[in-house]
């Protein structure tokens, strides 16, 4: 029997030496694999999955280092280790926005030989595409995310509405419902979403901008397009109609968990989140609105013109890992059909394997999967650049400033930010 060691942000000094009976002299050397991960929402499911791996690979023990739940905090911790060429990192997660940076910096090992073209075909094309940079593929899709609209099915039914197709429709429905529920639920607001100055703000604002026919960069990725009329109009809409009106001004202080908790406590009619929120919203112990929730595509500005930001996580192997073969074995196991199905069923994580979207068992418990499939296929990616973290900071700053500061000149701020981002992008091109 092998023990799984769980560590919390720190190395472990001892690994159980186990003189087990089934280990023969012929078996491989014992190997300790270090998997740096964020703190998962469903600890137990991960523990079980890794226990399953060590059962079939008795010579490998997996040590997990848990970083904070926040993507940026995890990024800073992980890249600090990789900058130092730390050999105690074997397997890690990459956010879809980090692949260019990890590839260009030489932190992630190219996986072309291991992650074969036939294997890639089993995954959603969009998830494989984000794992590529230049000539190589660096990541195996763990899960795919795209922004979704969660709503109070009970309230929409009560006022005989169906899920809104446009933001105007959503505002109209929210106003009617909030007015009608005023006496019974005075704190009910129309909408809850993350608008704090952080990465999530970029994700959500991209959905408004892309839903309005705008973009963050030109298609060739060389020029920032915040000052285009489409992008400006979308930001203006959020500033004038969403913050402090449809949504409480408090949304300016919300990251995902806070905005989700507002929805789970029944204080919002509509809510924007990733697929994982479904499991939490329908979970009797965590949610006060279990059984009253629906999920749909985010609305657009004209019917049918909706946009969702692409998110998700890929497994990668550190360039400094001394056990790439064992690391690959772990990744193969964790991204297998069986493990992804377990994650989907028990943790509500949207799979990245195409076949699972038509899996009868999964569809029985997650009927929304078939809709997700369409949303995930057409999701909008954030700019793909090795300097994305710097671009994102400029975007966060811009969005937060124009949403939070009264009377600020939107067009001027957009032009200033465009100029800054263009300078950054020029830098990547001049690189020899």
């Amino acid at each position, binding site marked *: 029997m092998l023990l799984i060691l769980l560590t919390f942000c720190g190395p472990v000094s001892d690994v159980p030496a186990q003189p087990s009976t089934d280990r023969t002299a012929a078996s491989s050397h014992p190997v300790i694999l270090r998997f740096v991960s964020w703190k998962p929402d469903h600890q137990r499911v991960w523990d079980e999955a890794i226990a399953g791996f060590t059962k079939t690979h008795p010579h490998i023990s997996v040590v997990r280092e848990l970083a904070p739940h926040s993507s940026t905090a995890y990024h800073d911790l992980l890249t*600090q280790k990789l900058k130092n060429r730390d050999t105690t990192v074997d397997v890690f997660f990459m956010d879809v926005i980090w692949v260019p940076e990890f590839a260009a910096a030489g932190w992630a090992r190219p996986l072309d030989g291991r992650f074969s073209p036939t294997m890639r075909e089993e995954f959603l094309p969009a998830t494989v595409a984000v794992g590529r940079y230049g000539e190589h593929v660096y990541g195996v899709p763990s899960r795919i995310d795209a922004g979704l609209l969660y709503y109070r099915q009970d309230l929409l039914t009560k006022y005989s509405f169906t899920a809104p197709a446009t933001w105007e429709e959503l505002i109209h429905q929210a106003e009617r419902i909030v007015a009608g529920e005023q006496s019974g639920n005075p704190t009910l607001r129309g909408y809850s979403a993350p608008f704090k100055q952080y990465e999530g703000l970029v994700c959500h604002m991209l959905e408004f901008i892309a839903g309005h026919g705008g973009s963050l960069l030109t298609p060739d990725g060389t020029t920032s397009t915040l000052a285009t009329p489409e992008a400006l109009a979308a930001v203006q809409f959020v500033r004038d109609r969403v913050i402090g009106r449809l949504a409480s001004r408090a949304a300016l202080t919300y990251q995902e968990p806070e905005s989700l908790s507002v929805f789970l406590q029944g204080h919002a009619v509509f809510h924007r989140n990733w697929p994982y929120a479904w499991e939490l919203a329908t979970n009797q112990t965590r949610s006060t609105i279990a059984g009253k929730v629906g999920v749909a595509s985010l609305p657009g500005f004209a019917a049918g013109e909706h946009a969702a930001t692409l998110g998700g996580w890929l497994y990668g192997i550190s360039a400094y890992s001394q056990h790439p073969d064992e690391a690959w074995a772990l990744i193969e196991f964790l991204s297998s059909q069986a493990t992804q199905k377990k994650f989907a069923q028990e943790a509500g994580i949207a799979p990245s394997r195409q076949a699972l979207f038509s899996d009868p068992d999964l569809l029985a418990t997650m009927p929304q999967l078939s809709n997700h499939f369409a949303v995930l296929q057409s999701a909008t990616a954030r700019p793909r650049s090795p300097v994305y*973290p710097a671009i994102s900071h400029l975007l966060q*700053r811009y969005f937060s400033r124009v949403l*939070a500061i009264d009377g600020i000149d939107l067009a001027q701020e957009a032009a200033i930010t465009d100029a800054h981002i263009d300078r950054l992008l020029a830098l990547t091109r001049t690189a020899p």
Partner: protein
Amino acid sequence: MSFLGSIARHRESLAAWTMVAPALLVTLVFALYPVLDSFWLSLHHIFVGIPSLGRSFIGLENYFNLLHDPVAHQALLVTLAFVVLSTMLELACGLVIALVIHERFRGRGLVRAAILIPWAIPTVVASQLWRYIFNDQYGFANLVLFGDRVTEYIPWLAYPGVAFMIIVLADVWKTSCFAALLILAGLQVISDDLYDAAKVDGAGAWQRFWHITLPLLKPALLLALLFRTMDAFRVFDLVFVMTQGGPGDATQVLQFYGYQTLFTEGRLGYGSAVSVAVFLMILSLSLIYLRAIGSNLLERRRT
């Protein structure tokens, strides 16, 4: 005799150097080296995400860019406002606290110990506490002000100016007691004879405070001001935990900006330039303060 004497002196200075050496070595390795290395890095153009750019030496270009960087300007303004406001308030509160715990009353020891609790709490924990206090839904501030009228609850941290003031408030709450401790030490060295003499001369309590306590407290006040200014300049944890620089960059301080450029964006050269700039500002401020404290002590000796 001079020969033997010089050997003895030589031996003595050798012994002195041997004894100082470990401390000197530690200072060189852990204080001077990082500063010099940061300065060296700040003269380069390094983007971790684009290794093909290499480590090109660009002289002072990062510093010129810093002078024209609107985010850095905003961060400098916010930092300066934070330093001035928080140190002034901390000194005022610290003085009041020190005067109270200097008086003799029952349970003074207990009060003196209790006063230090905010300072003993790690800043990250204190920041979380303040974030909860000003939470829009279940925060203590809203509960006290509005009670059950939940519809009137205010999202404090969503307003740029208010969020900034909350950061100042959290810092004042946390470190006033530290200022108080330094000022208390200053109060304790003032001889009671002076007060007795003043009383004989018919000076009232206010006159005694104004003409005896405050002038004699000046060195302690300056020392507290020095420590607090240096600390306030380096504010980071409060911002990191409570606001991440938002909303709208209202709480973006220099140290957090440096952290973002260094650790998240991987701009090692530019981020180092931000750190060195902060270091130079703190250094020059401390030199000014130290001169003030020094001349102040000299004046006292003359009188």
